[in-house]
């Protein structure tokens, strides 16, 4: 089942582009990452999905239902963690969570205490007295107490300490295994790499790539370093070796293309050592932005 589908979705703020012609789908059970720097259009897309912004053109379907017509019905099954959490400062976390729970039909109130214990959050403090991290924990709990089928997160880990982040990712994995679809927007690529199976890259409001995280990593430029016995007998380098540079008998270059070309060439050489590194998501991401 397709959980999120956008068709030609655009949002303009006057002449300024928020998002332009965005087409993508997220299937049930996906852990979908949405990568882009600040201002690329991630929050605009999420707010359009949730009905806070009226799209300039295009279509949105959530859980197979047209938005915004079925918005209230569909949002019964959606949890949302915003990037910058703003709650009612005079409420305590417990009051806020109870208030939030009152909007849903399928709320499990026992989850309030269970999750607050899990995240080590004191529920009886006022929002105005909470640190950014504890407000974020409140936001995470409020997004889960109605047991959503789809969890939309916009930079959810900002403000969380590394230990809580680790627990949060474990919890997300567990929820995903029990059927919850994850939409995870972030500019922290290591988090996308850790959590997601598919990802979209957004640049200046347009999606420039949608791929499985593993194939995104595989199909990218490889950083190669070869140490030769003697550089003299090497001869001409294949054209697919980019950015090649010599330092004594050490050749460094980037390789992109048919891996057999590389392996055949290496087989014909006399080497002392070899290292071929997969680029991390950060490098891939920068490649997209430099194109």
């Amino acid at each position, binding site marked *: 089942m397709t959980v999120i589908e956008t068709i030609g979705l655009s949002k303009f703020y006057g002449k300024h582009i928020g998002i332009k012609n965005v087409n993508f789908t997220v299937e049930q059970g996906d852990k979908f990452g949405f990568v882009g720097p600040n201002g690329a259009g991630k929050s605009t897309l999420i707010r359009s999905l949730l009905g806070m912004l*009226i799209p300039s053109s295009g279509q949105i379907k959530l859980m197979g239902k047209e938005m915004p017509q079925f*918005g209230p019905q569909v949002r019964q099954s959606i949890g949302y963690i915003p990037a910058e959490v703003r709650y009612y400062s005079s409420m305590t976390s417990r009051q806020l969570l109870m208030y939030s729970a009152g909007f849903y039909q399928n709320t499990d109130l026992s989850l309030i205490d269970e999750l607050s214990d899990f995240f080590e959050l004191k529920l009886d403090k006022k929002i105005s007295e909470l640190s950014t991290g504890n407000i974020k924990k409140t936001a995470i709990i409020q997004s889960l107490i109605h047991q959503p089928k789809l969890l939309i997160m916009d930079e959810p880990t900002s403000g969380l300490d590394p230990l809580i982040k680790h627990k949060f990712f474990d919890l997300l994995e567990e929820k995903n295994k029990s059927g919850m679809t994850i939409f995870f927007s972030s500019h922290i690529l290591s988090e996308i790499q850790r959590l997601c199976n598919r990802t979209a890259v957004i640049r200046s409001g347009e999606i420039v790539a949608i791929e499985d995280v593993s194939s995104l990593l595989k199909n990218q430029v490889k950083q190669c370093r070869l140490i030769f016995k003697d550089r003299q007998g090497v001869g001409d380098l294949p054209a697919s070796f980019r950015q090649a540079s010599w330092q004594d008998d050490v050749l460094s270059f980037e390789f992109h293309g048919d891996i057999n070309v590389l392996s055949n060439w290496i087989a014909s050489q006399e080497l002392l050592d070899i290292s071929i590194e997969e680029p991390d998501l950060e490098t891939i991401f920068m490649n997209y932005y430099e194109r």
Partner: protein
Amino acid sequence: MINTHLIASEVKVNFKNLMIWTGVVVAFTVLIMAFFPSIQMAGDDLTALLDSLPEGLLKGMGMDEFMMTTGLGFYRVYYGIYIIIIMGVYCFSTGAGIFTKEEAKHTIEFIMSKPISRLEYFFSKSISAFVLYFLLVLIQAIIALLAITWLDTETIDISRFVALHMHGAALLFFFMALGIVSSVVINPTMNFMGLGVGLVFGTYLIDALAQSSTDLEWIGYISPFYYTDFNVTDAGYQFNAISTSIFFLLGLGLTILASRLFLRRDFLTL
């Protein structure tokens, strides 16, 4: 179409503010009525003083010779000016603030991620504003009735009292609806209290100016106060169903217009 959870929460959140405003209005009502027995005792002297003032000035200030002799007449002078202005500012700023606060403080993102439609949100919020309005109007009227009954030696004409308050309530309903529609068309971060004071006090002054001279009567047409009859001491004073209905219908019309505009609105988010 409405969400009772949201209505209850809104009324609860705004209740403290309502109590402060109600306290001010009720205290003012009791305070001015506390002066009435001594004013009544000096009635002849004060009536002579009023007779010496220009008629235009008296009309502009909502005064006449009966204000010194009847409790309802005395009360009407203050109700038709100060109390209505204070309550008008409350109604306008509450109507506007009930929507704009969510956007200005960015809590709108929390609410709109919930399973609630824009129309449901709009009408639930509007209803909670009208509940607050109703409580203010009702409590003030009850306290005023008790104060007049207690301090005036003559029997109060209930039908005139009710008519006076119905006219006032209709005007306040209109101000609240103006506040709601303003919140949809004006930047939510604006100071709506200042706008409310300016609008309510400004339209009152326009009416006072129109009442003070027949040459300036035309200017009164643009003020809602012009169409509201507070002259409870006039011989034929009675409930004006037409102007009251028009104010309530205009208020409803403005609220429905605001709902249409609200459906097409992008919320101010971070």
